[in-house]
């Protein structure tokens, strides 16, 4: 069984601070990490590898430093890795990313499962999985809490649905997005990290390797501006009889959509 896991390297959000009053974003510490939810997808793939012997392929689209993300994936246990990098990909929005990843996955070929994260911690958009499934013409199961079984041309999973869950079955090949609460991703082994940089290869593909021209890579969206949430004002006090203050507080919380 071949499992492909698209991963995204993102700026570590914990190195970023926002000053709402000054309306500025500060990068205190510029570090790049694998999107945490993508690690959940990778972990599910590795569990299948441990359990029934599967081949796990990590793919990422990004600048050259995304190579580190692939080395980490291999150190965790991925068998091979592909870096899709090209100056032509730099202005990509999600529709372009799907084209690039989709072409690469088709070129790798012969896969049974694609496991992706539900959303990236930077954009929170959650578009990649379903878009990629549509591009590749695959059935999809999103927000998977538990991958129950995969094999015999089928995958069975339990997915989050409203307050409860649903048991879903799809025919293979299929694309699943894995929820954050599905598992605890493993840590790379020391030997894994060493081998990932010393022994193992990352295959690098650019636009021409994927048969992509400039007009295939034009983004559909345009960013206009950024804005900031209102500054928090501390110290508002409510005084009065208990019933009154209670009522006032509840109104406040409802008006602010906090409850």
């Amino acid at each position: 069984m071949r499992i492909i896991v698209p991963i995204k390297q993102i700026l570590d959000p914990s190195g970023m601070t926002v000053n709402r009053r000054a309306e500025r974003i500060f990068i205190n510490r510029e570090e790049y990490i694998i999107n945490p939810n993508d690690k959940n997808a990778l972990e599910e793939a590795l569990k299948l590898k441990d359990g029934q012997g599967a081949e796990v392929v990590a793919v990422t689209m990004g600048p050259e430093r995304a190579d580190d993300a692939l080395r980490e994936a291999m150190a965790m246990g991925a068998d091979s890795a592909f870096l899709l990098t090209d100056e032509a990909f730099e202005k990509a929005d999600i529709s372009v990313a799907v084209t690039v990843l989709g072409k690469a996955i088709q070129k790798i070929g012969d896969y049974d499962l694609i496991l992706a994260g539900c959303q990236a911690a930077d954009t929170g958009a959650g578009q990649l999985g379903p878009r990629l499934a549509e591009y590749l013409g695959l059935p999809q199961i999103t927000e998977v809490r538990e991958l129950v079984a995969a094999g015999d041309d089928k995958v069975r999973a339990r997915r989050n649905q409203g307050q409860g869950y649903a048991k879903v079955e799809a025919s293979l090949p299929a694309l699943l997005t894995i929820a954050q609460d599905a598992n605890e991703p493993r840590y790379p082994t020391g030997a894994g990290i060493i081998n990932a940089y010393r022994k193992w290869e990352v295959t690098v593909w650019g636009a021409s390797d994927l048969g992509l021209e400039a007009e295939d890579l034009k983004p559909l969206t345009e960013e206009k501006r950024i804005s900031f949430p209102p500054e928090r004002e501390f110290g508002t006090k409510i005084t009065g009889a208990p019933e009154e203050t209670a009522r006032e507080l509840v109104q406040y919380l409802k008006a602010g959509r906090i409850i």
Partner: protein
Amino acid sequence: MDLDFLESMVGEAVEESPYRDTWVVVEKEGEALALVVLEMLGKARQLSDSLGVYVKAVFLGESTEKLRQEIISNGANVVYVTDDPRLSEYSTEIYSKVLGDLIEEGKPEIVLLGATSMGRDLAPRLAQRLGTALFTNCLSLEIDEMQRQLLATYPLYGGEYFQTSVCPEARPQMATVLPGAFRPPLADPGRTGEVETIAVDVDDVEVRSKVLKVVSEETCPEVPLGKAKIVVSGGRGMGDAESFALVEELAEVLDGQVGGSRGAVDEGWIGEEKRVGLGGTQIAPDLYVACGISGAIQHYAGILDSKFVVAVNKDPNATIFQVADVGIVGDVHEVLPALIKELKKTV
């Protein structure tokens, strides 16, 4: 600026595009319309009014006369419905085919869906199928009338800041809307509109994923404190173990988790694993309620990642009020029961 020139520019943009109207995709919550649908209808009405076009709702599930009228009362000019049983439950492949066909034929300018479980599964797939852009988790939608574009604003980095973007050319412009971002409109039960049954062609759709079983309410294991969305904590100011139970009751009414300060742990009212503050559990809830907690630095340093902090304390000078968004000055033994009573009324 040359007014004639401007006018001719705007006029051209409006005449050439065949894309018109704002569509809202309907979903139910149980037997009622999901609240986000009403919120979207209100916003769609605003957007359409500024463009001089219609609001059309697409209701693929089982719809009753009452629900159809409710959609019209809340702003829709037309409701597309179907009685085809294959569409009564959501299915990715069937819904994206039917909506894809409808949209390609009807050519709406804007399509809105709720940022719900169904919205997350369907909207990106549909956008990919239509070759258009999608803005997810929008908390603000406006029209740039000059450019005749939808300005969509959505959060990045979990809400640290917001991005506003447009989709200049591809149509329709699609957006998923965050529940609670917009207010539901004032319904007008006397409003009239059309209900149109659509033709559904899904014979060729190969449905390759099927739902085997749905469990509607999960007996969840307790959410770990670090991941809780709502945390209610008690401190030494609660007085005794019996009063601490009020903290637990408040947490239950709010559907949140219970925590405690160092003081409460020392008194034995709550376990060490529930201690909030430096050295205790890291929390980042949407709502944090501190009851009878003075606000020693070790405590409040541990709660600063909370989105909204409420404090209840009888000492108006307690440090906790400096880091609370809203504070109630009062006796916890009186305020908490009143709060619980008030919340039970509304929730």
